[in-house]
């Protein structure tokens, strides 16, 4: 068994998500200690492109989340397109090509639920801009396991459907505009 990661952050977004990710990742402090996982529906087929794009806006190391690799603290892991991304009990990633959830793969719900199972109260999950309901049930699972929920204020989001659905289904510990999410995460990790 690997040493338990003390804190993990999972970020989910869809339409408008690329800009949102740049802002949030760019605002995390350089010594941000948590392992960060990103599911974005807007990623191109080519995950390497998304990885390098996000890397140029982040002080943290950005890598593709690959199957059987350990989650690393202080590192951003980006879900590849076409696969659902899960976290296993031994804190490694796994992938599946199971049917789409909420019409998407990777689905935020899938990642959030499996991460909630493994990390419980050590997980913070963030739902940002997006045009479908994905992430709402996942966030509900995160909160049920004692995790910390941050939702972008729908009024501030480029596409309000996803954060609005998350608030309706799961509620949140913090509701704030995009520009304040990184600060909320920095504070949570303090």
């Amino acid at each position: 068994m690997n040493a338990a990661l003390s804190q993990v952050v999972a970020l989910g977004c869809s339409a408008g998500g690329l800009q949102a990710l740049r802002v949030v990742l760019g605002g995390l402090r350089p010594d941000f200690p948590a392992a960060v996982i990103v599911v974005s529906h807007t990623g191109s087929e080519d995950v390497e492109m998304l990885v390098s794009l996000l890397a140029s806006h982040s002080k943290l190391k950005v890598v593709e989340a690959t199957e059987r690799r350990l989650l690393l603290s202080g590192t951003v892991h980006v879900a590849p397109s076409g696969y659902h991304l899960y976290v296993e009990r031994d804190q490694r990633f796994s992938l599946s090509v199971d049917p789409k959830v909420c019409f998407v793969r990777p689905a935020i719900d899938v990642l959030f639920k499996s991460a909630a199972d493994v990390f419980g109260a050590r997980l913070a999950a963030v739902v940002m801009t997006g045009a479908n309901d994905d992430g709402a049930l996942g966030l509900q699972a995160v909160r049920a396991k004692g995790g910390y929920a941050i939702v972008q204020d729908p009024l501030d989001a480029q596409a309000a459907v996803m954060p609005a659905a998350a608030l309706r289904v799961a509620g949140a510990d913090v509701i704030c505009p995009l520009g304040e999410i990184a600060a909320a995460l920095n504070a949570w990790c303090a």
Partner: protein
Amino acid sequence: MSRPEAEDVEVELFIRALQLRHGYDFSQYTRASFKRRVQNLVSSHGFATIGDLTARVLRDDAFLAPLVAGLSVPVSEMFRNPSVFQALRQEVFPLLASYPHLNVWQAGCAFGEEVYSLAILLEEAGLYDRTQIYATDFNDAALGRAQEGIFPLREARTYSENYLAAGGSGSLADYYHARYEHIKLDERLKRNITFANHNLVADGVFCEPHLILCRNVLIYFTDTLQNRVLGLFRDSLIRGGFLCLGNKETLDFAPVAKDFTAINQRARIFRLAARG
């Protein structure tokens, strides 16, 4: 760590029940996706808990088939990741062309999307008449579907685009008939395909293939089972034979890695050393 959640215990008991009562061993499946599939079965069949599902499968043999169908993962498309099929056509087929007879094993064939894709490419390369394709799966319901070669019409457009991107030399429509809401693949494509039940978890070396295609199957397995299956592939392949895995799968962690050379790392095509 704290004590396990009740539902995680239920998943383990479910796995144990399937193993003891029916001989299906899912103990080496990665848990997160397996648990999600079991939860889906619980809700789609109207059970309250995984424990209720376990009770049913212990006592109702007729329930086993739909259960196994729900636990296996038949999601694919024709020419999925076209660049992989193009790589097979351009980099592997020319090397296979020197053999008088070819065996191809597709392990985990699901509904047959990739089997027929292979058959079409082999046909266009002029190799199909001397090829025997073995398409295997442990899920009989999926095998039955694969044998029919019928797919939803709404997929035809994606399949056609994939086919062209894979370097197909005609039009995919040359190989199917559209009826109602479905497409049915040409019977002639089946002439050299044998569909058979083979379970990678339990069954042994198979058919001395020149090429094994096994894509997006290993991602569901733990290290232990991946290593077993990759060993099985190495021992089955002829010397100098080829192995094609899914785009996110890797040999990196496996003891057999030393026996293979990457032909095309991006397409996950590997070749077994001439001497093993």
